[in-house]
């Protein structure tokens, strides 16, 4: 089991770098959708016994992160008729390097934190932190509103990975609440992104500079 889990986590880390390295927004959304769906399978692997909450959490995560949210975003993308990220704040290659650095940092940092249960995979914590950091990089270095939403989604994916350590601690109601909040959040943000597109004839957030001191 643990080898399979580690393999999935390594794929998640590689997907992070892919998401950083492509300028086609549709491809980024698809990568992150695949990442979300893959993460949805982890609860099934982490637990020896398959209880109803575990299966429900897994199914809900796959449905939301892998299907529902990406389809909202692809629709928003189609409405806005954009295909590529304009030249990002830092180029694609530097952002991959930055992502790799973030991953290395996450590995070093999580070495400082001891795991309570030695049987759990040692990759969970570094993958979680690295994915969250990659989400940050996407959020801060991309200009299109929709790519920033993808960055937020990657950040949430990172946090979701950490949640795997605590599935017993978090009751199903709260877990569903978290997923619902995420879903509604992406929904609301996508609506606003569409309004930005309509009002400014562009999804370029560099036009949002009127409010300042």
């Amino acid at each position, binding site marked *: 089991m643990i080898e399979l889990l580690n393999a999935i986590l390594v794929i998640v880390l590689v997907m992070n770098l892919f998401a950083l390295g492509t300028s086609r927004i549709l491809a980024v959304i698809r990568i992150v959708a695949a990442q979300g769906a893959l993460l949805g399978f982890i609860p099934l692997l982490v637990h020896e016994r398959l209880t109803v909450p575990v299966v429900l959490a897994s199914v809900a995560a796959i449905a939301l992160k892998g299907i529902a949210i990406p389809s909202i975003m692809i629709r928003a993308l189609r409405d806005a008729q954009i295909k590529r990220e304009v030249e990002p704040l830092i180029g694609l290659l530097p952002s991959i390097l930055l992502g790799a650095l973030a991953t290395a940092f996450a590995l070093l940092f999580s070495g*400082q*934190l*001891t795991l*309570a*249960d030695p049987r759990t995979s040692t990759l969970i914590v570094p993958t*979680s932190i690295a994915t*969250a950091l990659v989400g*940050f990089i996407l*959020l801060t270095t991309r200009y299109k*509103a929709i790519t*920033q939403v993808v960055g*937020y989604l990657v*950040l*949430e994916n*990172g*946090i979701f990975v*950490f*949640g795997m*350590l*605590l599935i*017993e*601690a*978090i*009751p199903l*109601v*709260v*877990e569903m*609440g*978290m997923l619902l*909040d995420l879903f*509604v*959040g992406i929904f*609301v*943000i996508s609506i*606003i*992104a569409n*309004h*930005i597109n309509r*009002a*400014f004839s562009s999804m370029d*957030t560099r036009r*949002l500079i*009127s*409010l300042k*001191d």
Partner: protein
Amino acid sequence: MAFAFIAFPLLMAALALAVPSNALRPWLLPLTGAIHAAMTILALMRPEWQFTSAWLVLDPLGKIILLVVSGLFLFCSIYAVGYLKYRMERSNRVFCACLLAFLGLMGLVAWSQHLGLLWVAIEATTLVTAPLIYFNRTKLSIEATWKYLLVGSVGIALALLGTFFLAYSSTGKGQEPSLLLADLLRSAPTLSKPWLHAAFVLLLVGYGTKMGLAPMHTWKPDAYGESPGVVGAVFAGGITSCAFLAFLRVYQICAAAGEGAFASRLLLFMGLFSMAVAGLFMVAQRDIKRMLAYSSVEHMGILMLGLGIGAPALYGTMLHVVTNAATKGLLFLSAGNIHRAYASKSTDDVRGAIRRLPLSGSLFLAGFLAITGSPPFGPFISEFAILGGAFAAGRFVVAGLFLLFLLIVFVGMGRTVLKVSLGRASAAADGIAYRDGLLTAAPVAALMALVLLLGLYIPSPLGALLDDAVRFLGGAAI
């Protein structure tokens, strides 16, 4: 009863979506506000009627936040009816529904004893308040909403990671991880220190973003500046108080774990830094609503500072939650009236507000004196208590900086407010028919009376609530 506090406003929100009349719909707000306020008083006076469950308990801290939120909402809801009368050209369906849902979620924050549920409630307040900022449908309000959503969501995501870290810190000694406040407080001394420290920092950044502490405050001037005054009032008094409550829970756990000194250093720094940044941006601020937003940053800094000083300043800090909310309500609502009378919120256009709007203009000026800590108003008492706490704790440098920043804010804010209030009414107001009406001026005047009352005398039930809260916090402190 706990359930009713959450379900009733949500039901009314659904009703607001169903009501077809744009003129009748806003009246649901004061109706809900009044019933909610009555329920709050009942829950506070008759604890045996609370019918709590393990997850929903009204503890002394929750009581104060519930009281603040419920009271402020009542005043704002009356004002909102008056405000929406002037905005009949657009549908207020979503506005009313979101405001009502917001009340229900704030109730959930006040009652919640489960840190995961608390997080869900706070995240949900971010989502339902986004349409409130977007009410004016202008390019500027889209920009403000976008920044609010993005900064707020990222901040709150970090708070979730922090919550997870906190839960994980309790797994060490073969215990089941739990996010119930009582469990965490009980097992606090055995929590894993590195995880707890990391959790504390993440939660400080996360809920601090929601409170609007510098340097995570960037959404605040934009959101407060572009939304209607009534939204600014419920934000500056409601959301910030709820986020502060969430943070108080974390602080309590940290203090119970014997890490009070670690927490206190960070809090003092964040508090003073927020006050300094707010002071800096308030000097030469030309937009009255943005100025109030920076004032909110300053006062969140004061709350953090009071918490950082610890036991001697806790009474002042909890009182400051109440006085700040009332005064911010007063300021934002009167600023909203001034904005409407001049169709501008820039000091370039707005002059002589007292001549133009005798009541709102004078209340705005008095509100400025109150919020900057002049006697005989409420914030003076709470800020003085925090200052006294700083001296009692022997933190003279902190006390000195606190006074210095208060002075900078007073001078910076004073220049803008005096320019706006005094003198001859400027030409910008010509041809605008708006005058103070009963619905838009009476709630402001009532809040003023409340702020003055809190400065002269603390009613004994409130005093008892504050004492309980301090004991509740201090019992866990070092």
